[in-house]
């Protein structure tokens, strides 16, 4: 039932794998908005998709770009997208390697790989779509689920507190870290553009609505309700600095956390090869 002819006149459609449309994402899924923003960022920077490799894992957010975005796409095992992407980037240093996946995939089971990629400062861009739930499997609690929220495996209330992913990755050594919500779509597009251009590990965490699994169980079953909730509870970093921990409970801190230059992994490994070959007198004949 998949169409090859798409009628939409939206120019960004040219970046999509038409034979895979319409997407399997739920109506109103923030993931679709992230795909939209990503296409706009690629378009704005005039990046040729032939110079892109997109890697994803398992989960609804891992489906955002794979298979829907038309580029070399690698859809991998749960939690390991960043590790696969590391191999791809070392092999193809001149291509832009982008990981688009979810909070469960990248920060729960995949947390280790996320931390070390940031530590290595490898030149990949990670767009981490945080819908604070395990959506694909039916709506179980995640390490990013807000305290007190209702999910299928926290049916009374969530007793854990969510991980602050952006702050953690910033501390691990990333070059660029930013957090936005899908409601802040203009800033999101600009941030993705910046992340793609940074040499080093860049993370854009996108707080995204999952109306079907999260919203519905937490009194926000309409996608627009969740978007309004994001707008109401977002606090820019500059303001958050002056607020107490209690005041920040349940709020989304948005903005750019880190933007710095650090030695980058692929540069370093290639530099090492040059040094070794030089010192062993292996160059030329």
């Amino acid at each position, binding site marked *: 039932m998949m169409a090859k002819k798409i009628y939409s006149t939206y120019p960004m459609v040219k970046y999509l794998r038409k034979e895979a449309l319409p997407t399997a994402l739920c109506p109103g899924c923030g993931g679709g908005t992230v795909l939209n923003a990503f296409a706009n960022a690629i378009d704005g920077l005039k990046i040729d998709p032939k110079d892109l490799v997109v890697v994803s894992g398992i989960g609804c957010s891992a489906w955002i770009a794979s298979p829907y975005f038309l580029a070399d796409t690698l859809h991998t095992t749960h939690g390991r997208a960043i590790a696969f992407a590391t*191999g791809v980037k070392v092999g193809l240093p001149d291509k832009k390697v982008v990981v688009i996946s979810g909070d469960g995939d990248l920060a729960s089971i995949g947390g*280790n790989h996320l931390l070390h990629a940031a530590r290595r400062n490898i030149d990949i861009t990670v767009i981490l779509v945080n819908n604070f739930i395990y959506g694909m499997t039916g709506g179980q609690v995640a390490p990013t689920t807000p305290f007190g929220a209702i999910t299928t495996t926290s049916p009374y209330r969530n007793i854990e507190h969510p991980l602050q992913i952006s702050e953690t990755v910033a501390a691990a050594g990333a070059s660029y870290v930013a957090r936005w919500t899908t409601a802040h779509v203009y800033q999101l597009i600009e941030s993705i553009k910046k992340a793609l251009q940074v040499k080093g590990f860049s993370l854009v965490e996108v707080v995204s609505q999952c109306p079907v699994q999260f919203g519905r169980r937490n009194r926000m079953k309409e996608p627009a309700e969740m978007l309004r909730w994001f707008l109401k509870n977002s606090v820019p970093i500059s303001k958050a600095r002056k607020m107490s921990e209690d005041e920040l409970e349940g709020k989304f801190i948005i903005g750019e956390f880190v933007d710095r230059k650090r030695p980058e992994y692929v540069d370093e490994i290639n530099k090492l090869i040059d040094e070794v070959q030089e010192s062993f007198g292996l160059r030329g004949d």
Partner: protein
Amino acid sequence: MIIRGDEPEQLRLLRRLYKPGNYFMQGNEALSYGALFAGCRFYAGYPITPSSEIAETMARELPKLGGYYLQMEDEIGSIAAMVGASWTGFKVMTATSGPGFSLMQENLGYAVMTETPLVLVDVQRSGPSTGQATKGAQGDFFQARWGTHGDHPIVAVSPTSGQDAFWEVIRAFNIAEKLRTPVVFLFDGVLAHTRERVTIPSVEDVKITYRKLPDNEEEARLPFGDPHGDGVPPMPLFGKGYFTHVTGSTHKETGLRDVYTPEVHDKLVRRIHRKIEKNREVYEKYEEHFTDDAEILVVSWGVTARPALGAVLRARKEGIKAGLFVPKTVHPFPAERMRELAKKARAVLVAEMNLGQMIIEVERYVNGDVLLKGINKIGGVPLTVEEILREIRGVA
């Protein structure tokens, strides 16, 4: 820069760095040099006894050849990075032992399903669990075959010495590239750390293969099809503008996921099996000694094949018609030859450093009237010539 290993510049470097001749080195090092000669220029690994020397050798030598050594944060990340790099065009390898091999199973299955060439070295150690970390064993025979879930074929090879490891790892790479499949290389802690004479050949004597690449756009559009009828699809690498889609989900010939149509899954999984089953001549290999008239057939593999050979030689001197069969490719098992040899024998003894694993394969091809017995030893010390000879005498 993607390196295949047979470029003139690479041959020049190999000639320059590794002069042919006899060396005294441990099995792990011999294996590593074999991998370098095979064209391996990307290694992502995690240290684990008794395989760490492979990582160390690769870390030291790969930069000299323009290759990449990555130390990942765990074994899972290692095999993941390998698969990613293989899709950019590198020949890739990692080495681990039992506990790490257990961790790698999921992504090994991913490599089978996405038909990604790679070589996974398992330097077996005493298990289960942490076991005797520094001692060799042969307990991963069936883990190599069935460690990952679902219906999947596996090709696994096992050398019998450090010298043999040098050549067998080259063969493993050639199989992986030719059949677009991962190959498991079953080594063990004894051979890994034993120092012996290893002859490094001249580069000209080493023949290596590279994977099938698409000839045209049409072939590139079907990365999981069967355009040549041999079950092996051409591999449209990343970065060439093919817009290749690779997924571990069940997929059509174009690579796009389709989990709804039963025929798609059936076709894909059967083709992946057929790719291995119908290409026996690519990987099947075994060694035989004195099998023409053997009444007592000893079957063995890996490190145990050596004392087994010693025992068979001694038995022959004592007038016992003993013979030795050593499968070098252990999965898929050389069923036809096993059946032939078992027909001629009165007794079949399977010697291995475990509580009986290869014997389960052998049993399938041995008639009920033939005596089948295992010669098993665990505890980290290899079987000796005496121990095997005693068993041979016992059934003579």
